[in-house]
């Protein structure tokens, strides 16, 4: 960030001196996302290696309902777009709109998690839990890790809605919202890889 740009926010200069510039924080958060990607690649590698280890149990083609997964995908994609709308409202300085869009983002994300839990619960009830075969262990690990990320993103989003409500769109709140949106878009990218590799290739 150039001095001229920080000058425009002279009132918040103290905040930045304490916490480093938001640009650096954003980059730091990006590095976290990249390391998270390395974590996911390890789980993807495990899944790829075990993707035919059915141990006499069910295959992906027998387990997955693609239209169900398609709706899950659309929920997450809509949620990602709604998150973008929240960021646009943030730049317009409209607290109420930010809260509305975040609430929509949250509900769509919650719908995604609810569908995923329903799918897991059904698989386990039918005896196709993670203990059935190495393939299903890898499936639950990969999809579950993504789901955990989405769930923690929802907690973070609830906290941010509270902060927008109580603190308004202070510069630090805006910076946090930017990082939350990075996280949310990032999870959508990981989901693209998940539905392609796990569900589409699994059914094929």
């Amino acid at each position, binding site marked *: 960030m150039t001095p001229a740009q920080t000058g425009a926010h002279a009132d918040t200069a103290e905040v930045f001196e304490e916490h480093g510039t938001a640009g650096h924080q954003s980059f730091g958060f990006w590095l976290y996302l*990249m390391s998270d990607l390395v974590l996911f690649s390890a789980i993807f590698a495990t899944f790829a290696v075990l993707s035919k280890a059915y141990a006499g149990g069910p295959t992906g083609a027998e387990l997955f309902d693609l239209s169900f997964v398609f709706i899950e995908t659309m929920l997450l994609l809509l949620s990602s777009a709604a998150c973008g709308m929240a960021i646009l409202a943030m730049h317009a300085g409209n607290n109420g709109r930010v809260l509305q869009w975040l609430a929509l983002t949250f509900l769509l994300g919650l719908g995604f998690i609810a569908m995923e839990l329903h799918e897991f619960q059904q698989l386990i009830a039918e005896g196709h839990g993670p203990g059935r075969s190495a393939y299903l262990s890898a499936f639950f690990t990969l999809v579950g890790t993504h789901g955990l990320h989405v769930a923690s993103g929802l907690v973070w989003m609830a906290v941010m809605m509270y902060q927008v409500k109580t603190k308004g769109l202070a510069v630090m709140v805006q910076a946090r919202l930017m990082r939350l949106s990075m996280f949310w878009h990032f999870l959508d990218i990981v989901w693209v890889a998940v539905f392609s590799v796990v569900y589409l290739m699994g059914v094929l």
Partner: protein
Amino acid sequence: MKHTSATGAAAGSLKSYITGFILSVILTTVAFGAVMSEALSHGATVVTIFSAAVLQILVHLHYFLHLNSSSEARWNILAMIFTVLIMALFVGGSIWIMHNLNIRMM
């Protein structure tokens, strides 16, 4: 430079989010459609799935995360290229080694 950057990241416009969303819906539908319709051969379907996935990831990076060639995004892109290298080693290496092992154990 528009919408900079007290918050540390460049923001998109309404147009970029809508474009990204529409392109993502199209690419998702193409991938699911290719598998569900069973219209293509096995090989062509695999190619369709992976092309649509790579394209959609690029769409997300460009329209939602606003990665571009600007100087602010340069370090983000460098970090990402390094990560992609690590991922290729991880995933490609694991599959290669385990596939080989599998063949030798048969």
